């Protein structure tokens, strides 16, 4: 074989303080690609609506929210038509909530792989969240259609959704890593996750604007990273007031902590995945 890299594989007891092993993950990026591709392919196999599910979920939620919160409860929407107001939040939220649920179950569902073959285990939740990104793109197209239908012209500020999308991705992965590893150890997670996602929905300004909160609380509120994401999306696309730099900073810091601790916890527990799962 041409590749004469004299690789040495070392087998030894689990380290107390694991490394991220990002280098290994990078050398196996093709595997991450194939696992993502599998998740994308499999997700809507043998379903009637297929890929339309990626659009139906935020669309139907938006309709329900618009009816109950917008029409009946008359929840303020910062001067933006309520359907747009809700959809701009639901698109990143759906990505987050689905990513959370799916990555929480990803490792347990891959137990046949984990007990039989070695590869960087981080590839599993990572691929799951990446596969969700495709749904996110499709849902975003739906959002574009609505923006145009409401006569909103593209602006330079739309670029702003890129960093906020990345923040959403990082937050999803951070929480997903924690839940995926915990789920291997304790199957309670399986039951807790739908409940967690539901509570998190109400703790995020999706049906209502975050302007309902006063200032010291708004920054505390930003401990939920999805607050900055949702406010950022609305600001970039709909021209609502920008989230304060303090709350964006808080959200970013929390996301970073989640991502780092999530990876470390995952790496620490992954050594025993094959024995426990």
């Amino acid at each position, binding site marked *: 074989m041409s590749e004469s890299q004299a690789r*040495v*594989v070392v*087998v030894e007891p689990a380290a107390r303080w694991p490394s991220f092993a990002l280098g290994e993950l990078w050398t196996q990026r*093709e595997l991450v690609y*194939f696992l993502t591709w*599998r998740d994308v392919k499999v997700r809507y196999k043998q379903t009637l609506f297929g890929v339309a599910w990626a659009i139906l979920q935020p669309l139907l939620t938006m309709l329900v929210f618009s009816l109950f919160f917008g029409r009946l409860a008359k929840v303020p929407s910062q001067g933006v038509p309520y359907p747009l107001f809700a959809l701009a939040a639901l698109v990143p939220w759906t990505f987050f909530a689905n990513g959370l649920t799916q990555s929480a179950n990803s490792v347990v569902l891959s137990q046949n792989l984990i007990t039989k*073959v*070695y590869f960087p285990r981080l590839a599993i939740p990572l691929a799951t969240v990446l596969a969700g990104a495709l749904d996110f793109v499709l849902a975003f197209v739906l959002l574009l259609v609505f923006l145009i239908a409401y006569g909103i012209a593209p602006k330079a500020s739309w670029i702003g959704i890129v960093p906020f999308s990345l923040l959403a991705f990082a937050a999803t992965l951070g929480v997903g890593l924690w839940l995926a590893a915990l789920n291997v150890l*304790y199957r309670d997670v399986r039951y807790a996750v739908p409940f967690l996602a539901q509570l998190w929905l109400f703790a995020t300004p999706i049906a209502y604007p975050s302007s309902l909160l006063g200032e010291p609380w708004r920054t505390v509120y930003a401990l939920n990273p999805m607050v900055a994401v949702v406010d950022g999306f609305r600001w970039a696309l709909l021209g609502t007031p920008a989230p304060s730099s303090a709350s964006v900073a808080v959200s970013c810091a929390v996301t970073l902590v989640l991502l780092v601790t999530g990876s470390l916890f995952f790496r620490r527990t992954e050594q025993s995945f094959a*024995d426990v799962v």
Partner: protein
Amino acid sequence: MTQVIRATGLGKRYELGRTLRRDRTLRESVVESVGELMRSTRRNGAQSADRELWALRDATFEIAEGEAVGLIGANGAGKSTLLKLLSRVTAPTTGRAEIHGRVGSLLEVGTGFHPDLTGRENVFLNGAILGMRGSEIERKFDEIVAFAEVERFLDTPVKRYSSGMYLRLAFAVAAHLEPEVLLVDEVLAVGDAAFQRKCLGKMGDVAASGRTVVFVSHNMDAVLRLCTRALLLEHGRVAESGPSAEVVAGYLARGGTGSPPAQWIDLADARRRGSAEARFTRVRYAVPDEPGRVPRPGGPVRFDLEIDSTIAQSVASVAVVLRSQTGVMLLVADIIERGVPLSLTPGRTAVRFDIGALNLTSGTYGVTLWMSQAIGKPIDEVTAFDLEILGDATRGFGASAGSLVHCPFTVSFPSGADAQPD
């Protein structure tokens, strides 16, 4: 020779009833922790050794480049655990191992196959999971498909495949992995004889190409033919290591997969039926003049039987019966053939069968003992023990396609005739 695998003190401990539990919930874990805390305060130190299991302990060995090594041993001896550690599926509790080169492990055929994906898609997915690069899979794709003989069904989801097609495709992907060190668990135990033969052939190719192979098997014939060296594991420890012929012989002399030769096998607890007026009490088999050796295909074997009778009687039929693993009756050595009944007296009677040529191929066979009158129900019928038959061949293939009857032959290629092998 350079050492490709160097292991020192490798050990794996499982905590019974804890880590092995599949579905553990937070509540259970809290309850256990509290229980453990109370126990540890009560009697300090004495770690509950009964709740621990060392699946592998203190395994130290070296494997040189290009060696084909067989891992043998009874079920639960730690073979698969060792393979799991070497392939990094799970981390050892103690010790360390270094492996030089690209490691490919094949602990199962079809790992990561997704039922909803097509054959084509699964080739790529499975290849990536086994450690192949996309370009590598693309290059070998046609070869893999041809090897698996599934061309027509490439775009069908594999859940619609027959189990044979599924296995063939899965093995084809694995077989085209080109690692420098190949770790193989008992994948050969699945599939039909033709499939197993294909697997063995491919592994032989890998070994012959100078790559290192570590191979777990219960098939002693395959170990002898494929492996230059063998490690015998017993109760999680490496009991023996050396040339495969010696290690296999030593293993079989101590019983191996069946019962040991040249030792009395007590039948008190054996599965039996019959009127019990007389019973087989014990049995022994051996190759005359070669105690400790299991019989060879076509070679002699002697059976010594002991019968304990309650009454004086004459029995027409006393027999040794050999069956295949699937229960097919293959050989019967019966005194009824000679027309000389056996006179039993109250107490013990010995019977000896000398079989001149045991015309069965290498493998494991079930031995049943039979005693009856010419007609009617058995007086005693005992499922006695498993007998291993093993040849001396250290190259080539095992008996073709799972054949059972040993057939001595010679082969030549007379010149002039159109006997050119293809």
